[in-house]
């Protein structure tokens, strides 16, 4: 059920990719450690749409059921956490986001959705940059045309 995108790095080593699609800032890693200690293994699903859309939603691993319509972009290794944090996105959204590298950051905020960090007074936030040509090549990514 948990498909890797065709463009994804070697699936047998998702947590140690040579070229990553997703990174985590030190501040976001701190929040993840806090949430992990309080709740257990974690996952992200990247949201789209209105209101709090575009936010990465953080859940207990398995709370959000992924399926064939999702792709796993990363399994994020966080120091001090036994299990990696899987990072998911809807496949159709990935087709439109796949040319960008994502960094999970955290900012003060009120949250919303059912993401775990909101009661802490912070919100995870995605910062983006374009994949470099070398990264696109390594990931086998071909940008769609408008």
């Amino acid at each position, binding site marked *: 059920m948990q498909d890797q995108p065709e463009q994804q790095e070697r699936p047998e080593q998702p947590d140690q990719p040579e070229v990553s699609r997703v990174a985590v800032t030190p501040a976001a890693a701190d929040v993840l450690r806090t949430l992990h200690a309080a709740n257990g293994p974690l996952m992200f*699903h*990247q*949201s*789209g*749409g*209105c*209101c*709090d*859309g*575009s*936010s990465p*939603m953080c*859940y207990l691993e398995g*709370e*959000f*059921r992924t399926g064939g319509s999702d792709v796993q972009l990363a399994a994020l290794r966080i120091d001090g956490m036994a299990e990696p944090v899987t990072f998911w996105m*809807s496949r*159709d*959204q990935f087709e*439109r*986001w796949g040319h*960008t590298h994502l960094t999970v950051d955290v*900012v*003060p*905020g*009120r*949250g*919303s*959705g*059912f*993401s*775990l960090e*909101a*009661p802490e007074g912070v*919100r995870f*936030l*995605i*910062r*983006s*940059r*374009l994949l470099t040509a070398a990264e696109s090549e390594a990931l086998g990514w071909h*940008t*769609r*045309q*408008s």
Partner: protein
Amino acid sequence: MTRYAAPGEPGAKMSYLPRYDHWIGGEFVAPALGRYFENPTPVTGQTFCEVARGTAEDIERALDAAHAAAPAWGRTSAAERAGILNRIADRMEANVEALALAESWENGKPIRESLAADIPLAIDHFRYFAGAIRAQEGSLSEIDDDTVAYHFHEPLGVVAQIIPWNFPILMAVWKLAPALAAGNAVVLKPAEQTPASVHFWMSLVEDLIPPGVVNIVNGFGVEAGKPLASSARVAKVAFTGETTTGRLIMQYASENIKPVTLELGGKSPNIFFDDVSAADDDFLDKALEGFTMFALNQGEVCTCPSRALIQEGHYSDFLDAAVERTRTIVQGHPLDLTTMIGAQASNDQLEKILSYLDIGQQEGAKILTGGVRADMPGELAGGYYVEPTIFEGNNAMRIFQEEIFGPVVSVAPFASYDDAIRIANDTLYGLGAGVWTRDATTAYRAGRAIQAGRVWTNCYHAYPAHAAFGGYKGSGIGRENHKMMLDHYQQTKNLLVSYSAKKLGFF
């Protein structure tokens, strides 16, 4: 008066309480765990009240109250419920300025919008559904000479409603009015960014609503929203928000075999055909206003016309004029009557918009105006303000594909009608769209070809209660507004009756 006094200031039209508990069973109820969270105004970033931080225990208590109230409420006559809805509307009409002030202070929107749109629309919504429920009839089918099928509308019972923060009072009313008209009891969870204004609304109308019929539980999504959305004790969940939470709510609902309605946003195209610029007249002026509608409510509208597609023949002229129109938008104190654009609703919303301004430029989109956080003077310095921004780029860019929920429009040219429709439909979403043309055939064909639930034709951002609103594709399931919304809050009871004394002959 050009500036409304802020809530609680001398001469203000309303004031907030320093603290809000839950509203359960017709009274304030302290949260079971005794915790509260701070509620800042986006106007200044300063906290103005604290609000109950609800948990599953509070949700259960609210569901107890709702279930206690639902049977009697569901048996009231349509005339009685319509009378209550009309009295709610009258009470709101007598307090328009107070409600508008409450909404603007909590959300950050300019008060001229709250006064002219949010609150009058909310008032009309109650009146519309008061009328709709009076006019609604069941049906009967005459199967044969001896057999009749009667169809009755019955309320669902107790429904859950999760409200977004972009129009805190109006969006609550969009969900409350049809639910109450249909005879349901409600447990409502406001957004944690805007948890208090609906309490102020309730303070105005509480004596009109039987205890337990409307219950308000505040708190965070993971602590209060989840136990409400996943409860087996609700007959339906209505949610407005984003896609991941929408999917999660559907997953919870699937565990309980409950229906959901979801409104999950869009990336609405606003199409300007060449003939819009055929004359320099009122219509061209209206179309330029239609372009600038991306800045309405700071762009925090699910149907924000955030992709402007302009035909090549008038592209430069129209865009130049649109940039000029955008530059005349007055950004300022949301309580100032001359202000056209106020504050984004929260800090995280501000940060998200800035992240899109960043990736848009990285992708090579050109900023024609705006593109930065607005530096505001004095007490507004701590608020969350963004300059109205026009990007020029192409439809493959992230800023054309994801809802930014800010005052940001992404512009691209198109060559032909077919080109326009192709670009318009090249999106995951399908909530709103705009078509601008002087040619009735083009308007009709384009309107039918665009895969979106509403196509504004030679207008934009009108929200009359009598027009269905909802999404195609990833924008959600179900509709809001219009009498058809009653169907989302009613069961169909069929009595299949035989008036024959003769057996069938099978046994």
